[in-house]
């Protein structure tokens, strides 16, 4: 505790406070811009580590990380264009909320939820970092594999109206994930050297969401102007608070531990949080049409996962996300090796960083709540400018990764896929998760089998793995049972989904012919 107070003292010096503000503003803006993420921003800022003190640099990076987690939600909500893969889920309900004129509430629950989750997560980090190593190292590859399978299964089969379309989308994503030379041999690269490193998830996500959406809208653009929804300062009614605080806490509970677990990252907990809220909600009929729980939970989860990620990074020296990996590089640039020994060797630095996380969190709330109307103005832009702007920034984001025109070609190709998916009602989410988790799945099963020397039974040799598989079986049985209890009304139109918001949502649970 004393150490933490000392940490606050050095975090609150004017210089470090300035770096925290810069970090938060920069992080939020790159979080808002599609294509540029906190990992890339931190990587680009690595040169400042030569001229800036280690504490200032780390504080700024922490601000970028937390800011990026929050900033991604703004575009997810207002434009259906997630700036970050961790905000993909927020786009589902958040954008629907904005379209229903509840952007202010969506932004508020995201901002306050991020603050609550970030603060709780950072407190957990301060409490647990010294001991968390014991918990994390116990999970082996079989458990990770099982958990990832569960995430894929849940998102594909539980979310969405048509399970057939969910699986089509998932396996298209897994196909994209195969591309590259990760296994030592070129797979699906068609001799194209630019595909050797695989296809960047950012390019896929930006293409499917931004380009796909812009093209889809272009095909169906309303020719008469719509009434513009005025969005003021983010606020929430008492009912919104009542519906938000539990998802915040549940999101934090999911985000923090999964952020700390290797391969957990920020995506899985946001997916899981969304599913949890959808299941637990007292307003399940609103899901898919703008339920506030679907924004509150995932947005809390991604900020909590950032704290969890930093716990793993600081306590074990294990980077669990791209951003953490680059921060690890930055620390190494200062000659520091994150890990248990860092707490002994550099206690001041570690506790300054932890204190600065609290500061960054508070800054996010103070800065972004009043600034939200500025982002909200994006919705009032004339539509040709809005969608031309999306094309512009998506192209810039994809191009600035490698300066390859080839990446723009990929962007267009996947954008057309995104258009096709919207035309045929294929859900976007399973594809994105497939791309993100596909390589990890293969890696985990490889790790597990390497350790067991090829013995397949190792996959269910761990208690956590067994529990997860049992959970999957239970879910599957529940799905079959509900499918049997509510058989489709008629044979022919079983595949049709509710096409009108007023329609009861229990139709969504019906099985479609497989």
């Amino acid at each position, binding site marked *: 505790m004393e150490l933490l107070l000392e940490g606050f003292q050095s975090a609150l010096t004017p210089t470090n406070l300035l770096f925290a503000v810069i970090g938060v503003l920069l992080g939020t803006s790159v979080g808002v811009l599609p294509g540029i993420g906190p990992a890339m921003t931190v990587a680009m800022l690595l040169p400042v580590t030569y001229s800036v003190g280690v504490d200032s640099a780390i504080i700024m990076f922490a601000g970028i990380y937390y800011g990026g987690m929050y900033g991604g939600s703004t575009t997810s909500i207002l434009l259906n264009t997630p700036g970050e893969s961790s905000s993909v889920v927020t786009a589902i309900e958040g954008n629907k909320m904005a379209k229903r004129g509840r952007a202010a509430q969506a932004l508020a629950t995201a901002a306050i939820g991020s603050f609550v989750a970030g603060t709780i997560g950072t407190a957990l980090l301060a409490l647990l970092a010294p001991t968390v190593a014991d918990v994390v190292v116990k999970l082996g590859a079989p458990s990770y594999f099982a958990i990832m399978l569960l995430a894929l299964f849940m998102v594909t089969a539980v979310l969405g109206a048509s399970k057939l379309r969910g699986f089509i989308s998932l396996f298209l994503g897994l196909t994209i994930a195969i591309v590259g030379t990760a296994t*030592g041999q070129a797979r699906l690269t068609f001799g194209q050297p630019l595909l050797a490193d695989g296809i960047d998830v950012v390019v896929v996500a930006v293409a499917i969401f931004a380009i796909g959406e812009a093209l889809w809208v272009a095909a169906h653009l309303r020719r008469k102007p*719509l009434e513009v929804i005025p969005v003021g300062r983010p606020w929430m009614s008492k009912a919104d608070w009542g519906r938000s605080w539990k998802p915040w806490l549940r999101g934090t509970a999911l985000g923090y531990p999964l952020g700390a677990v290797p391969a957990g990252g920020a995506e899985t907990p946001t997916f899981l949080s969304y599913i949890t809220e959808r299941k637990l909600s007292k307003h399940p009929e609103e899901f898919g049409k703008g339920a506030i729980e679907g924004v509150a939970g995932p947005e809390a989860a991604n900020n909590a996962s950032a704290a969890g990620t930093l716990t793993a990074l600081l306590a074990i020296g294990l980077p669990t996300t791209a951003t953490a990996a680059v921060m690890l590089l930055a620390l190494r640039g200062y000659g520091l090796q994150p890990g248990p020994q860092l707490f002994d060797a550099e206690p001041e630095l570690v506790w300054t960083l932890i204190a600065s996380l609290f500061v960054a969190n508070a800054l996010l709330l103070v800065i972004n709540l009043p600034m939200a109307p500025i982002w909200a103005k994006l919705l009032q832009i004339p539509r040709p400018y809005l969608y031309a702007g999306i094309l512009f920034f998506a*192209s*810039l984001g994809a191009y600035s990764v490698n300066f390859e025109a080839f990446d723009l070609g990929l962007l267009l190709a996947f954008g057309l896929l995104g258009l096709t998916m919207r*035309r045929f*009602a294929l859900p976007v989410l399973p594809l994105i998760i497939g791309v993100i988790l596909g390589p990890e799945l293969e890696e985990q099963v490889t790790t597990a089998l390497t350790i067991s020397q090829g013995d397949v039974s190792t996959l269910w040799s761990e208690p956590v793995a067994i529990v997860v598989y049992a959970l999957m079986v239970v879910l599957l049985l529940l799905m079959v049972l509900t499918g049997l209890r509510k058989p489709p009304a008629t044979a022919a*139109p079983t595949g*049709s989904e509710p096409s009108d918001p007023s329609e009861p949502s229990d139709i969504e649970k019906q099985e479609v012919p*497989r």
Partner: protein
Amino acid sequence: MTTTVPTAVGTPTRVVDKAQYGLAAFLVVVGASVLVDAATLEDGFADQPVQPYAVPYVVGAVLTLLGVLLAVATARGDVPEAEDGEDVDLTGGADWRTVALLVVVFVLNILLIDWLGWAITGALLFAGGAGVLGSRTHVRDLAIGTALSVGTWYGFYSGLGIPIPAGILDGVL
């Protein structure tokens, strides 16, 4: 059952959505390509318990199967519910001409960016996109596009320290 029908693009319910056969065929083609590609892979190293072709075989096979299932579902009257949106008007049928023009603008950007550089093609991309989408103030579009592209170029160059290739304007910017 759907009572109000703003469903798929010009496709009344209970009518087979023929275009969906195209999607099914696409899935089968992609799945088959994955399988064919997997067949060309060699055995992995001794320390690779999971062969490099294992995952592609599974994914390719399932994708092909899903394509067949979709074709069956389509034949049985499965109709997709196209995604709705604030700016989306599904009642009037799709305007594929606008989409095609946007793709042309985008392809021009891809072809020209190495030569002309982002500062020029970005402006053309924005102005072209806005024009295709119905903006009639072409001069203003071009001005905004130029401001955006030059602004982002300098923002990346001096603000973020990322030198985006200047193309033909090398030395001017």
